[in-house]
């Protein structure tokens, strides 16, 4: 990877990486640190990373740093808000907010897998390469996460 390709990666993937890190860490400041560290590592390893693999490399570094950050600091502050204020009606814009809250019920690994799948559209195999998990593990963890989200969504639906 050359300088131009690196700068193109910054412009192309910085926002996506920041969104991913924000969801994983739950803290914008930590997310900024994760993004900066990820691109710094990419710059240092640019000789060994091709432009096509830059995105996966960035998410791989961000995933590991987010997991480590979570395990070390345990900063996840989940504010339990009044569920009565959040309602789910199909087609309503509140669905997004409900899903965000449902996402916070997942552990860091499940959250990262869901984000990589939904946000970035990675396949099971690609997620396995990024996270270091096997395809089967990715599939199992993702399905567990989906069921958790679905249960939460149904429970909110019942509140209505």
């Amino acid at each position: 990877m050359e300088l131009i390709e690196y700068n193109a990666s910054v412009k192309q993937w910085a926002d996506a990486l920041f969104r991913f890190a924000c969801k994983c860490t739950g803290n914008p400041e930590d997310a900024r640190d994760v993004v900066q560290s990820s691109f710094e590592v990419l710059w240092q390893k640019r000789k060994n990373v091709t432009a096509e693999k830059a995105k996966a490399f960035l998410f791989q570094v961000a995933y590991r740093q987010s997991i480590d950050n979570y395990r070390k600091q345990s900063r996840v502050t989940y504010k339990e808000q009044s569920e009565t204020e959040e309602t789910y009606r199909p087609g309503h814009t509140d669905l997004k907010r409900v899903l965000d809250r449902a996402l916070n019920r997942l552990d860091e690994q499940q959250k990262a897998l869901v984000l990589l799948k939904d946000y970035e559209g990675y396949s099971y195999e690609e997620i396995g390469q990024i996270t270091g998990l096997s395809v089967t593990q990715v599939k199992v963890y993702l399905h567990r996460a989906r069921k958790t989200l679905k249960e939460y969504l149904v429970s909110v639906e019942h509140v209505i």
Partner: protein
Amino acid sequence: MVNMENYEEYMLLEADGELTEAKQKALQAFIEQHPELKNEMDLFTALKLEPDASIIYEGKEELLKSLPTPGKRIISPGSWWTCSAVAACLALAIMLFSKPDNTAPVNTIAHTTQPAKIDTKTTTGEELHSTTKDPVTIENNRLPRSTTVARTKKKVVTEEPKTVTEPIPVLEKENIAKAPVQPVTNTNIEPIKEEKPEEYAHIIQPEIPVQPHAVSEAKAKQTLLAFAPVQEKFEGFADIREAVNEKVEKVKNIRSKIKDTDIQFRFGNKELTVRL
């Protein structure tokens, strides 16, 4: 084959977009057969998260890299000091080893302007008188010491017989009482055949025309420098002559305080010794 035990997995795979086209059709057929499962399928589909486009990373410029500018090359202090030390050593070595030895006459002016090497001897009167056989001795490193004086004298005599028979003007003016100078005559010089005149051409003064109207000029040239192993055409010859005359004048000033004085001049690798 989709059935009631595995339909949920098929739905999850469908939500993740991992089903093949054939399996998608099989799942749709199964849901059509069981309409009560359609709501569940819609629920899994609705669980798909959408990225929030409003979340952007501000300050991408800080992440961008640029090519290092050539003018901003950083030299570490260690390497800078190393380069300086090496340069200083080289300069010192050049100064030490480039001491002029066989340099041009112009460069030897500095040496001639330095105080001449004066050997003051507290000799007896006998020794003083015994040193006046040859008033001028030219020591040439190239020539054997035994033949230096004679050959030089011979050359002078053959080319300028008048000037050789006369005492050196410098010595004439000094009126040395204690150490009378015996004039050099042809009888004191052993005639030497001109075997290789070109060998000594570099130490022979160029021929000075002896004319009545140029006697004073010729006498001026018959100073000590007349016997110097340099040619008048050399660059800086006038400077050398002035320097020598200055030294002679200085010696005159102090000669009353000394009994015996030798003056040595150095022209490159040659030495000119004048015994007064």
